[in-house]
């Protein structure tokens, strides 16, 4: 059975998790211009949580992320679907991409970015759903 990890793994996971998550956000946001994007970023984030899961077990992971991974999947689909709608307000066809520049910081916000966030959440949620489901049937003592 999968048992909670060793000291080295525990310490490493504790420090790596925030870095990995930050990196995944970085990949997500820069994805439109540089290698990256929602799919890749979602996989990186899932990998980060998987590391934490191996180090501390299922109970600790659930206590940390609080929401059910399946809710992340649903939320991601909602984001992706929601990104198709703003075009209608501009009188343009469904799914036409919309771009806005956030004042002061000059950040390019857009419906493709919202869509990509949806992809990110779906990928993250799906992988976590599979992993936690596999762990649970292992009758992990923490579950």
């Amino acid at each position, binding site marked *: *059975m*999968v048992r909670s990890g060793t000291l080295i793994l525990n310490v490493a996971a504790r420090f790596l998790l925030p870095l990995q998550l930050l990196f995944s956000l970085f990949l997500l946001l820069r*994805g*439109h*211009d*540089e*290698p*990256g*994007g*929602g*799919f*890749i970023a979602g*996989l990186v984030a899932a*990998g980060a949580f*998987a590391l934490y899961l191996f180090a501390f077990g299922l109970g600790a992971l*659930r206590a940390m992320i*609080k929401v*059910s*991974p*399946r*809710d992340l*999947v649903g939320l*991601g*689909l909602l984001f*992706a*679907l929601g990104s*198709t709608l703003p075009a*209608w*307000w501009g*009188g*343009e*066809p*469904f*799914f036409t*991409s919309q771009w806005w520049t956030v004042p002061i910081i000059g950040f*390019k916000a*857009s419906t*493709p*970015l919202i*869509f*990509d966030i*949806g*992809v990110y959440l*779906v*990928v993250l*949620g*799906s*992988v976590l*759903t*599979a*992993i*936690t*489901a*596999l*762990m*649970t*049937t*292992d*009758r992990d003592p923490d*579950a």
Partner: protein
Amino acid sequence: MMQLAVLSGFVLAAFAPLLYRWLGSRTTVFLALYPAAIVVWLLAQWPSVVGGEPVLLEMAWVPGMDITLTFLIDGLSLLFALLIAGIGAFVLLYAGGYLHGHRDLPRFLVILIAFMVSMLGLVLADNLVTLFVFWELTSITSYLLIGFNHTDLSARKAALQGLFVTVAGGLALLAGLVMLGSAGGSWSLVELTTRGEALREHPLYTPMLICLLLGAFTKSAQFPFHFWLPNAMAAPTPVSAYLHSATMVKAGIYLMARLQPSLGGTEAWVTILSLVGAMTMFTGAFLAVRHTNVKKLLAYSTVMALGTLTMLLGIGTQGALVAFVVFLLAHSLYKGALFMVAGILDHETGTKDVTAMGGLRTLMPVTTAVALVAALSLAGLPPLLGFIGKELMFESVLHASHFTLLLLLLAFAAAFLTIAVAAIVALRPFFGEQRQTPHVAHEPPAAMLLGPAVLAALSLLLGLMPGGLDGLVQAIVVGIGAPEANVHLALWHGINLPLLMSLAALVLGWLIFRRWDRLRARLAYLDPVIARGPEAGYDAIMVALVRIAEWQTRALQNGYLRNYLAVTLLVLVGLVGHAFFFRHTPQFDVSISVYLHEAVVAGLMIAGAVTACLMKSRLAAVAAVGVMGFSIALTFVLFSAPDLAITQLLVETLTVILLVLVLFRLPRFANLSAPSERLRDLVVASAFGVMVTLLMLAVLGGERLPRISDYMVENSQPLGHGHNIVNVILVDFRALDTLGEIFVLALAAIGVYAMLRFHAAEGTGRLPTRPRSSDDGE
């Protein structure tokens, strides 16, 4: 923009549970404001529509495929939308009383409003594809509504039956609409109306007509598909009052009326519609009198009305179309009211059986009055709107060009049977001696009485002053194919043949009502015959379907991964190979120069694959597959595709994690397959590899089509505002594909979850009584 206002109802539906938490029992009143606002907006369009100027609200949806969200508000859609929104508002109020304090009321409201929006979309849509989308949405939401009491087996069965019948018809409808759209050269209903000549002479006319009518007949419960409607009475009564009287079952009628100018008037149209309609009319009326359950009585009389409407469209003369409109409106008003009265009876007395009720008039005088007025309209007696509708119906049947005598006989029989039904529903529970019912009856709350009272009052008011409808009826009749009409509705047409027929029907209907108890006992002898009716056919088809599913599951989905792969790969080799060698003459370009490092990477891949097959331990095999995966990633790097390389690396990593989790659960490694089986698998795998290789060589060697990637490269920055072409394709150019893919991914995740958590106990197909461990986050 109005489209968004109407469709925002879906958002409202999603927030209904939240509203319920805040507003409690006042939620339904608040929600009813939405349909009420739509009624106001529709009434604002009335002058223009009645003046002969249909309103066309244009809006693009998927312009590349001619799919629009354009709303068409002409007479027909105005009438339907008014009924849907108007009765919808009352049904919401009514449901608040009927399901007061019910645990699942929020869920009910979500589905009911989603249904309402779908129905509005269906009657307002101008585009065939959009119409179909809303059509299917009404099927799905009505499935959820019929099966609302999902712990009740019969409700689930009825819901599935309704879904299967209407969705099977929906498939036929889709085929019909595609034929209609391509034959007519337009996907817009407005345009198709003007192309009737060409459509009626088109070689695809007959198949198109059959497919479209199958869709309409199943939805509108025409014989022999009528059986699902009475079974759908398992739904809570607000649903029956809404879906099964005024709205959903009339969707098929709406479609046929809509298509009348494009497809109507031919020999086939007149024959099919008049005969099926008349048959349905008679079947519904006849089967109604066998029942004592007040909802079933009303459901069968709805079947009767739907048949009448179809028959009138089939007759298709100007008089018949006028009768169609008046009958439609009259039926929606009185049937909505009567269903709500039936719900009140059920709610206040605790029984649905009319023979168990009696003398309720002293306990619930207002309900009695409402029931009487609505039933008079159902019976077609003056001075109600139902009377005008029935007189016009008799009049047009007398002037039908085909099957006049047959239609007349069936219409007369249906009329007196309907009068008997009206008497049973309105007199039996309220008059006669008082009977003991499970609850002591009293008047329902005002929210439940308001709807039926207003609808019954409208039946009376419009019957007394039908002139107010002249403009609308005229607009509709002209819109659905009658030549310039001049409509003047009147209550009194003088003493003529229809009036005499009505009188005779009244006498006969009254006789049946007086002898109803004895008649029912006689009719019971017919039960074995009726049991062999169309519903038996449905059951047989369902049994056969399950058998076929079992057989094909055993044959194809047998649980052996290698068989799945073999089937998939062989089919692919067969199809691609066929297209490859019989449709084209492939030219292979073998003059490829390979650098040394590329050859090394390729060698690594091959070595990884071969090693994985030969390994005697799982861990080693996984490692070997990993070598292959990382070599592929390396290839992506060599050909400067960083996104693909990163994805490949990450997927490889996660695969290892998943495999580690799974490996613990697998039995000891063993070679279970015989050498011959492994040889067979080798052949399949090699065939697939060879095919893919040949395909790649042919792609390189064949004539070059303009490359789509050039477009992507050029437009990524100007149109997509991004430098990473892969990402721009994923989230912008091909975002619809990605949307589909993430839905598949989500489904796969749910599948994995369901398979692992609710794993069938030892393959018996039973769910474990409780989850094996505490659930996550619930």
